[in-house]
């Protein structure tokens, strides 16, 4: 087992950094936030060598750390209602979590709508959908999120339904029409 934090990082985290960033970006749809999230995950993961060493599946363990940091971070934001005490016209802030200009420019209209709708989901719903499209099965998702396997199916279904509803509210088109069109 590597001795120092950086040794642990080099041996156990760095090989999976790209995967972590990909998943983080899927979750938050924003480059800066994704990098923040992965950085926090790296620090948290390397602080706990015992847990890491005992994990049967290092990548899954890293996903669990990422998931927890994601949930914690989102809940911290939710505890606050941000009230601008400055003149709102002086500078229009980018609302946290929305895709930035660069992200928006790289996506089609349908993809932008889908990203916005996705960001309206609860954080756990987002995690479940992202882990699914990353290829994790229900057992693996259970080990990552701690959510019982039997409950997972129902939550996945609700996540997809919520996503569809948000997408329809945004675009006025049914999600199927929008997405079929975008895939043509």
């Amino acid at each position: 087992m590597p001795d120092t934090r950086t040794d642990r990082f080099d041996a156990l985290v760095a090989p999976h950094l790209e995967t972590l960033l990909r998943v983080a970006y899927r979750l938050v749809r924003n480059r800066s936030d994704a990098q923040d999230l992965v950085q926090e995950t790296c620090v948290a993961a390397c602080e706990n060598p015992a847990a890491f060493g005992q994990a049967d599946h290092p990548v899954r363990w890293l996903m669990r750390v990422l998931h927890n940091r994601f949930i914690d971070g989102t809940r911290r934001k939710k505890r606050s209602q941000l009230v601008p005490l400055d003149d709102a016209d002086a500078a229009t802030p980018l609302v946290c979590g929305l895709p930035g200009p660069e992200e928006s420019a790289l996506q089609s209209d349908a993809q932008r709508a889908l990203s916005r709708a996705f960001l309206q989901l609860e954080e756990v719903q987002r995690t479940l959908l992202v882990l699914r499209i990353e290829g994790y099965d229900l057992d693996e998702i259970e080990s990552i999120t701690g959510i019982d396997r039997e409950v997972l199916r129902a939550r996945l279904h609700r996540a997809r339904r919520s996503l569809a509803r948000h997408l329809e509210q945004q675009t006025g088109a049914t999600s199927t029409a929008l997405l079929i069109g975008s895939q043509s």
Partner: protein
Amino acid sequence: MNCREITGILDNQKAALDPGQRRDAEAHVATCKDCAEAWHLQNALAELPGMPLPYGFAGRCRALVAQGVQAAPNRRTVRRILVGTLAALAAAAAVVMLLPRPVDSTGPGTLARNAPVADVEVNAPVIDLSATEFSPDVPQTSAIEAPAKPKFTVSIVPPRPLPAAGSAPASGVVPPADLEAVRALQNSPPRQQAVQAFQSALLEELRRVPGLTLVDPDQPVPEPAGKNYRVAFMFLTQLGLDGRAVPGDSRIVELTATAEQLKADGQKTRRMMSFLRIDLLAPCAGIPPVAGAPPCNDPRGQATEVVRKLRQEVFPPDPSVTRPLQARLQDTSLDASQRIKTFEDLFRISKDQEDLALLRDPGVVRAALALAANGDPTLRAQIWRMMRGAGNPDFIQPMLASLTQDPADVRLAAIETLAGDFLGDPRVRAALASLVVEDPNPLVRAVADRGISGEASWRRYVVGSLGDANRPAAQRVEALVYYLYPPGATAASSTSHPDYWQILDQLDDKAVRALAEALPNAGKLQGGSTYNLLGNFSSRHAGNPAVTEMSLGLLERSPNPTIRIIAGQSLARTQYADPRVRDALTKAVQGDPEPSVRDQIRQTIPAARP
């Protein structure tokens, strides 16, 4: 397959579906609305664009890990920091703004003493901006003089103070009952200290930036500068879910920074920074940490991070930003896809700054040529387009070679740049003239002719090909599509023609009829522009009978539900007075096999609207 099996795949399938399973799944999805929705949604989510690993990211993570989670004086992370009182900040800002110091533009231009450049791998030396040598670990850039440091001015716009006690707050501000509580929290000495420390550190870091001059936001810029930026910080206060200020979190305030570029003509362009969330956690003296909150941090370290982001994303790039990119571009240990991404970053910076010097750097040129020589044709098309405007003659020969050996879309890219930058070269004129006659692709011939003969002949070709009934439908519309949606060097730089609406509006009756006839049969157009062009064309020429016929035909016969929706909505909005249109819409609303088509059209019909 049945719904349960589809759900099983969506919820639990690990391996990719074999062709038979996929066929069965898609057959069921085509007939089941609920399964279709879930299926397409999940697939579409999987296909959303991702994010490449940023250069130096691993090094940054490693550096953070090395510093650990405990508070450290020199820690620079992107963690949350607290800022303090608005009034204190405004006061501090006012004091500081009255005392600008000139930027020290001489001497070694190293960055903040305690901060290695974030984009450089941890083991690499801090880049001395006055040096041109790099460590052996970093690929050498071209042996040229250090590029001139850009000159620009920055004014920091402080936030407004809290409303005076007893005055009515502006809308959206903390309710009066809480204002005193917030003011009390924000006036606490530790918060004021944190704000002042951050403010001072920020200005000190800004003064280190080469070429930057700090100016008072209320004064005119002292001398013509390359660019002018206003950085406005907006300090927010956290309220709890009940709308009341949260005492325990009183020091947690989020900071948002934006930058405006004031151009010489008085126009402003606003550059939105990536959302900059900075928690200036007070120096911790005397304040117990909030449970679950990030640990104490150093305002100086966060100021360094803010300035680093400003330099990377907002200010004109200086060598500390561009040299790592240039080095990465020339790093042959990286594969082509990583290097082309780096090239795209350089291209984006050049474009944003309207300055092609980066792309003219000999090292960049060499690397681009090497990539073009060894990469696949798609890369060449991109490189040809990105180098347009740089005017480097080293690209002439490779692009001329491209004209004879590459696919049509790469030939088009080469033609655009050759015609745009090198028409004076006899080799280029000869090659283009030869293409006009000999190229097997009609669009390539036409674009080559455009390069030689100009826009008038090109427009004639666009309209002429549109009206040529002897051509296949796709060929009839391709020139117009190419005109309206010129391919960009990168996805982000692709935009429609600046005269898009004028071009569309100026199609005469014959061209409109021709387009209405050809468009439905043209198949998938480039760059996903099918729906865009169909919708815009239908709306701009709604009164033309040919367009009505086209839309009616699409509504009735198109196998694509989205196209039926577009056609139906266009008819409902513009031609509802026509009895034939009303009948067709009624039939669609009642009988279209796709529920989304029925719903969307129904909602657009005038009678149905509230």
